[in-house]
């Protein structure tokens, strides 16, 4: 997918910006607070229905206005046009239209315009809690497979319902065994599908991750991503794990832990407790990686995400890098830019200091430079 044109109205400090992009690298530069990241946010909204920042939709609207709107014209890999329109009026439901139809929900958008995002906030992927890594993996798999996304949404709902059933405050009546086992059955069915998909992911993804890491870093460290599902142990790691095997293991676990769950009033097994370990030289990156290693790991994870999505999805993703070059040394900047140029990815890179990048890299002709100040966009090629 290539984004050809983007129109942003009344989003943060962009009152009305009409931007055309290069199909390769787009540098977006300008002083702090000029509205660089807002362009990336607008693309992300067209891709996921919401921004990657923790901001609420109400707060995204430009001061003194009642609504924002974004329209985005893209071209698919096959050359057909794909349009997305998102409009948000204060206090109303977000209106999403695309080439797929009217009145869509965010769920319909996910995966159509695949994107890979990296902001300095994503440090938590390598250094934070297991939840952050689950979100990272879920975001990739959801963009690959609508069925995974659908199962994941249902799974989260079922988990909530099962917890509500277990919690005694909500359910002061007599405990209904039949009802409990019906919810458990549904929970295990969805869980096993999710764990199975995560297994296949963990088999394929490290290959991309390792090759990216060795490309960017000049050191010879060995990195890996290992999946440790809760309640499912595959001792016979050689054996190809099957959906039925996972299902049976979860069943068994459910039986073992049933009494504890009833006592604690909480679901105590399932993919909401899974861990994806990121390893560097066989140690946990969270514990032993240096600051510099964390940054290199993160960039490699994200470019690997791009490669993985590109291969598994029918659409090539676009890359959104928010101010990441301020975190990397000159050598690595040059390598990342080189990789981006070699992959023919359409990428959007925000930076304060463009001179630093230009001095270190050789850019080809198809690169676009956009200078942003106070929500105004100027091309400077």
């Amino acid at each position, binding site marked *: 997918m290539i984004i050809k044109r983007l129109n942003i109205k009344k989003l943060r400090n962009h009152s009305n910006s009409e931007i055309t992009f290069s199909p390769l690298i787009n540098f977006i530069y300008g002083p702090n607070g000029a509205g660089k990241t807002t362009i990336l946010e607008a693309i992300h909204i067209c891709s996921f229905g919401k921004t990657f920042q923790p901001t609420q939709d109400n707060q995204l609207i430009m001061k003194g206005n009642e609504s924002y709107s974004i329209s985005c014209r893209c071209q698919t890999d096959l050359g057909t046009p794909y349009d997305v329109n998102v409009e948000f009026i204060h206090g109303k439901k977000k209106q999403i239209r695309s080439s797929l139809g009217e009145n869509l929900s965010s769920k319909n958008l996910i995966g159509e315009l695949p994107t890979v995002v990296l902001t300095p906030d994503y440090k938590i992927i390598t250094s934070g809690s297991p939840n952050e890594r689950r979100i990272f993996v879920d975001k990739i798999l959801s963009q690959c497979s609508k069925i995974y996304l659908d199962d994941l949404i249902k799974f989260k709902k*079922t988990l909530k319902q099962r917890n509500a059933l277990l919690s005694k405050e909500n359910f002061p009546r007599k405990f209904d065994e039949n009802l409990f086992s019906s919810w458990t059955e549904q929970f295990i069915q969805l869980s096993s599908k999710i764990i199975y998909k995560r297994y296949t992911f963990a088999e394929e993804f490290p290959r991309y991750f390792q090759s990216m890491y060795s490309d960017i870093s000049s050191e010879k460290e060995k990195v890996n991503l290992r999946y440790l599902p809760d309640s499912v142990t595959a001792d016979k790691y050689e054996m190809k794990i099957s959906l039925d095997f996972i299902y049976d293991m979860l069943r068994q676990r459910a039986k073992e832990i049933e009494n504890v769950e009833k006592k604690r009033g909480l679901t105590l097994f399932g993919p909401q407790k899974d861990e994806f370990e990121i390893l560097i030289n066989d140690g946990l990156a969270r514990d032993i990686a240096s600051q510099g290693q964390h940054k290199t790991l993160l960039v490699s994870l994200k470019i690997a995400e791009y490669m993985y999505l590109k291969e598994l999805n029918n659409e090539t993703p676009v890359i959104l890098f928010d101010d990441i070059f301020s975190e990397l040394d000159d050598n690595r900047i040059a390598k990342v830019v080189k990789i981006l140029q070699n992959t023919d990815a359409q990428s959007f890179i925000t930076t304060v200091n463009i001179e630093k990048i230009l001095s270190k890299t050789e850019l080809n002709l198809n690169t676009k430079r956009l200078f942003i100040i106070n929500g105004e966009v100027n091309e400077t090629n």
Partner: protein
Amino acid sequence: MIYTSESIERVVEYFSNLPSIGRKTAYRLTMFLLNQNSDFIEKFAQSLINLKQNIKYCSQCYNFTELDPCPICRSEKRNKSIICVVEEPADVNAIEKTNEYHGLYHVLQGVINPLENISPDDLKIRELLQRIKSDTEEVILALNPSTEGEVTTQYLTKILKPLGIKVTRIARGVPMGLSLEFADEATLSRAIQGRVEV
């Protein structure tokens, strides 16, 4: 908004309590009523009173009815050995429109939802069990394919199966009149799972 008359204000208040009606629409409806002759108003008001007074739940299937038992339950033409279980009275209408089903219905009046504290005891499940007699051959579960609907289906299967009757559920898959390419992936994968031999 404050109107000049207490009576108008009162009616607007009532209308705006209705689903999907805001104060502006409520005001428009009130103005419309004000312009009608008193005959219309009297009939309108009376019909509302009748609605509440005459409509009750059928004591057998728990659908809305004026006569108890409801016309479907009392009909001689219906096949009394099949019961179709649905969530809401509106679902009965939907299935009746097909003109394909000639058995009886049972309206659960909801689905199991622990988050909203709806347990099997709050639904008409006990009543369903009481209805099942020796001549009942089949129970069709026609609940919505939501998470809660699926669990209710599983729950009902668990308690109905031991009674030795045939329990079936409606098929899930591609809607008629829709070509395959427009069906969403989740629906299609369900349809492939539930494929039938021809």
